[in-house]
């Protein structure tokens, strides 16, 4: 049986090179694959483009990747937070490009990539700074902005449990961006607390079918912090 299981986070991210576009799951720290990011950090890749909801919290995961200067550009909806000091410093020093995207458009653009949609009209952002220069259109009396899908080379996500085929289930609000990022990246690497024998997960409950997951990394006691 070919396996998607990787013995370590380091092995799973070994081929992520400079200039890669990487989606990182999580809403704050909930669902952020901190151990996968730490492994990426150890490799010190350069000129990364990151797609995530936030731009790192405190001194863990994504925040450290930014502090280490690995990130050239970030697409996210809510970079500035109480504990986003590493991002703030890099941004103010002009060391990181930022594209702010309304959270719902970010989610829909990621979903569109996975669903093969070429572009879509959304009402969110019409008439605001974040729609400047974008095509707009009135449809049935409502104004819309044309938004395009966001694809990625890799997606680093955190799920709750996986089976050997890569089917995933998530835990509470740690689900957030994981399922849609898994569909939008060429290679999806999922950090899970446990890999179960195939057949253990109820088919009705599987959220991310295994066809979207190329690599699974079992990390038993993953860091699980509450961001301030």
């Amino acid at each position, binding site marked *: 049986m070919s396996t998607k299981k990787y013995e370590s986070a380091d092995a799973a991210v070994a081929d992520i090179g400079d200039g890669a576009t990487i989606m990182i799951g999580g*809403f*704050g*720290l*909930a*669902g952020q694959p901190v151990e996968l990011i730490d492994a990426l950090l150890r490799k010190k890749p350069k000129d990364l483009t990151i797609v995530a*909801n936030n731009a790192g919290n405190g001194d863990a995961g994504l925040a450290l990747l930014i502090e280490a200067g690995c990130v050239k550009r970030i697409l996210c*909806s*809510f*970079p*500035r*937070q109480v504990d986003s000091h590493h*991002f*703030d410093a890099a*941004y*103010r020093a002009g060391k990181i490009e*930022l594209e*702010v*995207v*309304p*959270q*719902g*458009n970010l*989610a*829909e653009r*990621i*979903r569109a990539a996975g669903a093969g949609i070429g572009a879509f009209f*959304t*009402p*969110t*952002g*019409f*008439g*605001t*700074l*974040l729609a400047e220069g974008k095509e707009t259109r009135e449809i049935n009396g409502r*104004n819309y902005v044309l938004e395009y899908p966001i694809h990625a080379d890799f997606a680093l996500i955190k799920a709750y449990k996986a089976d050997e085929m890569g089917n995933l289930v*998530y*835990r*509470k*609000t*740690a*689900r*957030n*961006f*994981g*399922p*849609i990022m898994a569909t939008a990246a060429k290679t999806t690497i999922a950090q899970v607390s446990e890999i179960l024998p195939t057949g253990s997960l109820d088919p009705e409950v599987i*959220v991310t079918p295994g066809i979207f997951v190329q690599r699974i990394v079992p990390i038993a006691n993953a860091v*699980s*912090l*509450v*961001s301030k």
Partner: protein
Amino acid sequence: MSEFKTREQLAELVAADIPTGSVVNLGIGIPTLVSNFLKPEQEVILHTENGMLVMGREAVGQEIDPDLINAGKIPVIQMPGSSYFHHADSFAMMRGGHLDIAVLGAFQVSETGDLANWHTGAPDAIPAVGGAMDLATGAKRIFIIMELTTKKGESKLVKELTYPITGIGCVSRIYTEQAVFEIDKARGVLVRKLFGEASLESLQNLTGLDFALELE
């Protein structure tokens, strides 16, 4: 002589104005206080943008679970009837008009209901929008809780926004320490409640706007 309203009192007022069975999203900050005043029999369903419906109150002690947080990243509890879903489904609920009310804060609101609450426009301010724009255009009604004036005493209820806009003509009601306003597409801004020594005249002087007095 009733005093100006405190934040908690405004949150309580907003809670009382939410119809039974409404699906509601409470924005980060003051709006989250509203959940403390919702009565069980109101059967209000709270939605949080990061993928949960029937969201419970803030978690305390043993209840705290880092995987179960609200939009403000504060741990909350699960309730009977709760459900979890991913980000595209969560914002499809907003964009698709399935939320009855979103309660938000604001830097400014214009007399035509334009909302500014995501960016001060200051050049060195790091922009961060989160779900603000999706909520503003998506929810059927927007209730704003804000102080009527800035620290420098300027009115935050204005003719035209000077801050970057979040959503066009999307605000329905505005709860401030001095008065509750309602924006009526046809008749403009109505004063629905007056607090303390506020009066139609005092409000008009302070804001420079014209209001119709239609107390609830």
